């Protein structure tokens, strides 16, 4: 293949096309397809073990797909790998810095510019200004000179987002960024990401096992269950018929005080849940 296939025509930034991943006989992902346009906010929703992290690894190029492919839009680059790394900003899952790591928040953000380069960074005015701008964008100036390991979970999350954003990616990938946060911090991070997506035209793909914090901001949802996915707008996807087919058994979608509860029907034997039961003999899936 001389020219890497592109997802250019329809202005997509990412197209996941029938991706399957089988690891030692187990199917982790089964024909997953969806696409993301620039500036779009997409939630990748699924319970633990649904395949969210594996899907991220495929998109990042850290895990080969058994079938299907991942295509990127954006400007061409002679080396497909380099293009992918330039295109994507990544915030990893469940990660807290050790308190003794000798990095201030601004040092970590600075590493986002040039961590792949050799040698010791040379301080320059433009570099400092860029770091300052990113700290401002995520509202982290207050603790810019604090060690990252001494920041709260929400503060670390914001610094990690600045680290990912400073390379000017077109797509921001965040693996369960709300998992360790209290409700207030989670809402702040979601609002911040929505603002970044809107103002900087950066597509955001965020994975979560809880759908509600993302409901107000999602343009599109990719709902993952046992390796299979449906995607569309929230109205198209979060419906009893669609989700029942995805799960392979009956599922109710309840709207309670502006929140969505996805509940397995009475008597259904499901291993997908892991959430507290709201009603007797039923389980909340998300």
């Amino acid at each position: 293949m001389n020219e890497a296939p592109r997802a250019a025509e329809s202005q997509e930034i990412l197209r996941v096309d029938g991706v399957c991943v089988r690891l030692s006989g187990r199917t982790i992902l089964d024909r997953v397809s969806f696409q993301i346009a620039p500036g779009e906010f997409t939630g990748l929703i699924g319970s633990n073990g649904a395949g969210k992290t594996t899907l991220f690894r495929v998109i990042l190029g850290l895990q080969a797909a058994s079938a299907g492919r991942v295509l990127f839009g954006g400007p061409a680059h002679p080396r497909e790998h380099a293009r992918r790394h330039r295109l994507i900003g990544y915030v990893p899952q469940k990660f807290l810095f050790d308190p003794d790591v000798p990095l201030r928040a601004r040092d970590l953000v600075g590493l986002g510019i040039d961590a792949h380069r050799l040698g010791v960074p040379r301080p320059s005015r433009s570099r400092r200004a860029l770091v300052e701008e990113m700290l401002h964008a995520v509202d982290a100036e207050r603790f810019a000179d604090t060690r990252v390991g001494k920041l709260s979970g929400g503060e670390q999350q914001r610094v990690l987002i600045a680290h990912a954003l400073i390379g000017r990616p077109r797509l921001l990938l965040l693996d369960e960024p709300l998992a360790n946060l209290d409700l207030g911090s989670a809402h702040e991070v979601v609002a911040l990401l929505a603002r970044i997506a809107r103002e900087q035209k950066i597509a955001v793909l965020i994975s979560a096992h809880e759908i509600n914090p993302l409901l107000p901001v999602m343009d599109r949802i990719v709902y993952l269950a046992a390796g299979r996915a449906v995607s569309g707008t929230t109205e198209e996807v979060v419906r009893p018929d669609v989700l029942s087919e995805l799960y392979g058994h009956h599922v109710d979608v309840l709207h309670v005080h502006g929140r969505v509860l996805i509940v397995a029907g009475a008597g259904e034997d499901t291993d997908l849940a892991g959430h507290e039961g709201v009603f007797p003999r039923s389980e909340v899936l998300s």
Partner: protein
Amino acid sequence: MSHFLSPVFASGFFESEAVHIALAVGALVAVVTGVVGVFTVMRGQSFAGEAFGDLGTTGGAGAYLVGVGPLWGFVLGNVIAAGAMEAIGVQRARGRDLATGIVLGAGLGLAALLLHLYTTGHSATGATVTILFGSVFAISSTTIPLIVLLGAIVLAITLTIYRPLLLSSVNAEMASARGIPVRLVGVLYLLALALAAALAAITIGTILSTALIVGPAASALRITRRPLTALLTAAGIGVAAMWLGIVLAYDSYHWPPHGTIWPVSFFVVTLVFITYLLSGLPEARRRRRADRRSSASLVAQPTTTS
């Protein structure tokens, strides 16, 4: 001035060539181990550092047996050990201690045999002590070019891969998502660590070499917030401990029992340990002050209304 210093610097300190070499080599080695050590601590590879130190014993014993300088043995032994650890899987966080432990056990068994063969063949136990506890006053001037070369290699590796190494030490996933070849960076770093441990072994001995790698670095991480400052601080602490240790050891000629000097390694390691304890003080004081402030504000609360 010299009158004031004479009780500290015993006569002949500044004239002795052995002292000159000890001070120069000691400083170079302390800088190298300090810089490398910061990453050792950050990556949680202290056990690998310890293993390199101990495995230097095997290489050193082999070197005595075939009649070459112990540094060659330290270097060769450690580089082979690094290869073995990498092959067994030192880079996977989960099997890492296991891989290190297995290689360490096998190597030390061999060291026991080699030392036995040498000491029975030469009726000399001096080699064992030199290998295990170092002999910075007995470094021959012909070894210096090799020491400088090794030190330069380690510093060149570490500073060249500084940024990728820093990010992959903080979080390997973030680094590989950026396209950094995390495994290659890890191998290069392991090699730098192996050589640094060999250099440490020639000054303060194989079994104490980790102290010089981990100790100053751990102290530096407690008192600095910036990565480059941490490297410089660790190097500085190492040099200070090394030089003060050499001075005290030279001076100990006049201490009981008369006529022998105490081991330099003892002083260096003790100074490193004391530094580590002291480096925790600023943080402890800050925490105490914060506690006091929060309890004071609790008391003040009822009276403040705005």
